């Protein structure tokens, strides 16, 4: 396909539809034009979540609280795993809150083509609006759950427990961004690969569960040694969770190298995700 611009002046087209597209294209201009749609999608997801419920947004708290209680009981009391000297509820809640954000982003994004095939099959808008709206509506949920963590931090601070982050608290938003990039990137890769072959989507459900155990949500990295340390450390989410703990509770492993590693891996996952998503979005309605 060769298309050269050798047309006269009257031929300045606003839109050219052709078989091929650029490899990496975030479509910032298009995305900006559809910013209202992005916000309305976020609003839809949030509102639809608590409509016709009694507790409404309270549900955002119930899940992490319940999980924390179970973790304290099973891993803290029965198994007696270390929590880096932190109060157990604090240690688990920080990990759970962060992990939930990542896993929700990943799980929802990984079915974005299938969930939206009705809309995508009928109307065009930049498809990337949908996964980004998932990241944003989950960010809102994450923000609300953060209040719970802050409340618990204040409680333990008043109890006289000695902990707390230093300047690292400034890095907190960066870790959130890295989580979002990983969740979005991985999710986009999975949803793109499963439009034609569904196999991979069966892996996601329990894969995410298993992946949690290979990060440091329920045990601190500092207790691991030898080979196990490296297995867990290579998981790109591990140092993000550690980073979140350092920047909120002041305990965990954070060095310039771990920071560099997760930034690099997250960026790669994100870019690969966008490329694959872009490749698939233009024709997926033919194969899904």
């Amino acid at each position: 396909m060769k298309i050269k611009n050798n047309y006269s002046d009257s031929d300045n087209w606003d839109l050219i539809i052709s078989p091929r597209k650029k490899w990496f294209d975030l479509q910032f201009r298009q995305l900006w034009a559809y910013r209202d749609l992005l916000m309305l999608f976020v609003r839809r997801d949030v509102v639809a979540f608590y409509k016709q419920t009694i507790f409404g947004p309270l549900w955002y708290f119930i899940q992490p609280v319940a999980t924390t209680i179970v973790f304290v009981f099973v891993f803290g009391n029965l198994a007696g795993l270390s929590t880096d000297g932190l109060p157990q509820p604090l240690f688990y809640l920080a990990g759970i809150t962060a992990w939930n954000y990542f896993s929700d982003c990943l799980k929802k994004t990984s079915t974005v083509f299938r969930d939206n095939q009705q809309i995508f099959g009928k109307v065009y808008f930049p498809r990337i609006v949908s996964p980004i709206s998932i990241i944003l509506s989950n960010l809102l949920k994450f923000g609300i759950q953060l209040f719970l963590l802050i409340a618990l931090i204040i409680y333990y601070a008043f109890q006289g427990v000695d902990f707390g982050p230093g300047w690292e608290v400034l890095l907190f938003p960066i870790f959130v961004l890295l989580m979002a990039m990983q969740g979005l990137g991985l999710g986009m890769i999975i949803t793109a690969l499963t439009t034609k072959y569904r196999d991979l989507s069966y892996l996601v459900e329990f894969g995410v569960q298993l992946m949690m155990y290979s990060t440091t949500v329920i045990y601190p990295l500092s207790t691991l040694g030898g080979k196990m340390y490296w297995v867990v450390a290579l998981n790109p989410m591990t140092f993000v969770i550690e980073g979140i703990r350092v920047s909120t509770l002041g305990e965990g492993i954070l060095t310039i190298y771990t920071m560099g590693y997760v930034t690099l891996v997250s960026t790669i996952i994100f870019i690969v995700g966008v490329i694959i998503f872009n490749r698939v979005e233009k024709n997926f309605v033919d194969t899904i």
Partner: protein
Amino acid sequence: MTTAIKVENLSKAYQIGQFSTGTLSRDIERWWALARGKEDPFLKIGEINDRSQKGTSDIVWSLKDLNFEVNQGEVLGIIGKNGAGKSTLLKVLSQVTTPTTGVIKMKGRISSLLEVGTGFHPELTGRENIFLNGAILGMTKSEVARKFDEIVDFSGVERYIDTPVKRYSSGMYVRLAFAVAAHLESEILVVDEVLAVGDAEFQKKCIGKMGDISKGEGRTILFVSHILNMIKSLCRKTIFLEDGTIRSIGQTEVIIQEYLSSKKKTHQIWESGAVGDHVVELRSASMIKSNGKEANTIDFTEDLYVEYTYLVKEPGFRLDPNIHIFDQNGNYIFVSSDYWSKKVYDKGLYKSVMKIPKKMLNTGIYNLGVALTSYPGTTIHFFERDALTFEVTEDVSNREMDFMGKMPGVIRPKLEWETIKISDK
């Protein structure tokens, strides 16, 4: 006059059949070829899209080398049989999927309406859904806000605007959905016929609104429909698609005439082995008038004979020839069979004839399917659903009635009537 849409060498290939492990190896082969900069090895063996013939490859060209231009402010109709490529063309134009080859160039913002109420969320209120649906169709929040009152007014669901749409009746739902779509402001609109929705009254309103949009505001509209009257009233120019290519393009009246006559099929021959099984094979089917001539169109006042021939290859079956009639919209009108003859067949070539008496089918276009079944056991040896297509016409001056308009209904039998006076009051 400036060109709003320019379509050049547009083609679209589809892969048909099941996706399974078999497709994976072929995908890898294709990917490898493309990665080395070669041509896609599976697109070469493509063939034109004729659904009635079984193809040899599972790549099918749904659109093949389309070239046309649409001027600004023009309303272009697109017609064609099922499978001619209308929906594919709409999808490619509205960027839901990309072309396999070729380019489309457009001037101005384009909106496509392939469905009403895309993205409506049942839990959200009417108000929220207007904004959401508007945004999905490409409007900004402020544009929707500006048109909001008009939209609500047009839909007539003002009272329920803050109720979740899941509590709406289906009529209210589609009215609200259409109202949003009808207030789009883009320069180019791509519209599917499904847009005319709801009850008869609201449909009229929809078509009226479509007319306003197309006439008043100088916008370019592509309009796809089966309903020829709609095309006639909205479009001056029409494209007739057939097997993924443009068969003809021109004035709507002329094109519709061509389309209608192309649909008629009064004689058809099947090669040996095409339709049938090891017991019988269909050979030919035709429509004949009482004078023995082939009937292209048949008048309402004439008898029509349908005959089809078939080769019986195995003796001893109690065969039952039967004929199925459908109207233009695919509604089943009736099936008639020769069951009661209970004849057992020898080997040989046979011919069955069925008479459709005059003054039975109303004017219009009908599809006719021929089939052969055997009993006991009810085995269908063949059923050719689209064997013949014919039109019943009427010379209204012969009607022997004062009413000259189109009679409603699919059949129009002359039944026996008696009217008597019962008393003085």
